[in-house]
């Protein structure tokens, strides 16, 4: 007996009980299967690009913190590199090493939340994320020693970093580096061959390599589809060409591969941290740059590999103390373009697992 069904539209969001922020999806369903999905966002559009045109280059650094609020150090770094490219300023050696240390610690902290939220959506309600937050608190303690803040650090400056590290930082960092690989192995043991995780994420939400390039995906989403593209390797910024690390890539482009790529990236970040701490030179941490820096007229695009993908800042300057145009190339916005292809044909419960595996942060989608 065939039951006649009709497609109907259901609203998922903007306030939903997962940690992904205010994102709304209008899903057209036939029973439980998704026919079409339309993402609607803009619920956190704060007008950062317009606000930046009224602030000096140094005053924009706290604004960039709040773009991708889970990876504030990376945002600061990308913006400061773009301004230094525009103005032709170089940072001292010690500052470059400190920047790398902070960026890699931030990558581990952001991936902990990304993986934890994905596991939350897959059904392991609260247990993995509580363990990951326990480890993340150790990283936030390190950041608090350096900048005084737990979430929005405002640490990088044009021409270096704002303060040197205190004495207790390096012993605490060594202790963290010793303990972290053991922790990753511990929960990997529990989750790598877990049947429920495999059933919910293997083969779900597949994004092929050509599709990923076409939609301008970047970061773990692109690498899980098999494309070897990591800004730290193909276009090294700062001093990343002096460190040895691998680029984990997946093959199938499904949720499980994206999860594994993030876990492996955490291991590689610990490796970079060990090398950076060994080679940290003494010296000053900030070059002489005026607070009201006036870059010469022109434009520049500076990009880094943030935990979510390629974060870039496009700046146009007209030789005044504020930028003429400030644009953010947000990785989460472009990774979201693939949501429709990945989700059509799956059931409602898979939507959140797929959406969680892309790992977006609404602050930078909406700006």
């Amino acid at each position, binding site marked *: 007996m065939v039951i006649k069904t009709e497609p109907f539209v259901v609203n998922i969001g903007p306030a939903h009980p997962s940690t992904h922020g205010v994102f709304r999806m209008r899903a057209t369903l036939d029973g439980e299967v998704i026919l079409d999905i339309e993402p609607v966002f803009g619920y956190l559009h704060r007008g950062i690009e317009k606000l930046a045109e009224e602030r000096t280059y140094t005053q924009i650094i706290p604004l960039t913190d709040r773009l991708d609020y889970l990876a504030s150090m990376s945002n600061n770094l990308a913006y400061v590199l773009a301004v230094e490219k525009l103005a032709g300023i170089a940072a001292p050696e010690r500052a470059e090493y400190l920047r790398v240390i902070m960026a890699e610690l931030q990558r581990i902290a952001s991936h902990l939340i990304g993986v934890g939220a994905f596991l939350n959506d897959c059904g392991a309600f609260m247990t993995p994320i509580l363990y990951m937050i326990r480890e993340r608190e150790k990283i936030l303690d390190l950041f608090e020693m350096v900048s005084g803040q737990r979430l929005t650090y405002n640490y990088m400056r044009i021409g270096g970093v704002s303060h040197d590290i205190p004495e207790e930082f390096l012993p605490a960092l060594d202790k963290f580096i010793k303990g972290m690989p053991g922790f990753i192995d511990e929960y990997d043991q529990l989750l790598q061959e877990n049947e429920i995780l495999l059933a919910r994420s293997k083969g779900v939400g597949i994004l092929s390599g050509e599709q990923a390039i*076409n*939609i301008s995906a970047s970061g773990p989403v692109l690498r899980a589809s098999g494309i070897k593209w990591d800004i730290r390797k193909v276009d*090294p910024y700062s001093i990343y060409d002096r460190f040895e690390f691998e680029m984990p890539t997946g093959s199938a482009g499904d949720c499980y591969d994206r999860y594994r790529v993030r876990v492996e990236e955490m291991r590689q970040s610990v490796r970079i941290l060990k090398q950076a701490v060994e080679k940290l030179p003494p010296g000053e941490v900030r070059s002489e740059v005026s607070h009201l820096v006036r870059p010469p007229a022109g434009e520049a695009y500076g990009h880094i590999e943030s935990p979510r993908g390629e974060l870039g800042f496009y700046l146009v300057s007209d030789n005044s103390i504020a930028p003429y145009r400030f644009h953010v*190339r947000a990785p989460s916005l*472009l990774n979201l*373009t693939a949501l429709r292809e990945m989700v059509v044909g799956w059931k409602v419960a898979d939507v959140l697992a797929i959406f969680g595996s892309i790992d977006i942060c609404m602050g930078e989608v909406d700006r």
Partner: protein
Amino acid sequence: MTVALSGGEIAARLEERFPGSVVESGQDSLLVKSESLRAAAGFLKTAPGLEFDYLTAITGVDYYDYFEVVYQLTSIRHNHSLVVKARCYGRGNPALPSVVSLWQGADFQEREIYDLMGIRFEGHPNLKRIVLWDGFTGYPLRKDYLQW
């Protein structure tokens, strides 16, 4: 290292294929006419040796006489990059052809430029406001937007 190709060498190849499409070319960027944007972009995407298959970013800038849209293109295969620009004059109804059929990553970015600056992209399947709400008057990122 990603090599940033200079506008001059690409301009020569583009001119021989589509004569009259390049307005000016410099060390950093290449400026094409807005009518020949889609043809030039298609050529840049498929030409052997160039193959810019990855659209990194699209930005709209408001210089008072004209709007300029800047395309940052990258080639994953050859690891080089290029900056292409197109201008539209007149503040009444600025329009440009859309490149969504070539790079789908342009979808949300073009909608956002339409939303915040008012530049229409012809050929975009779903050009409506994305970060602001329907019924918002004005285009905030223009230089003459008055808030109060």
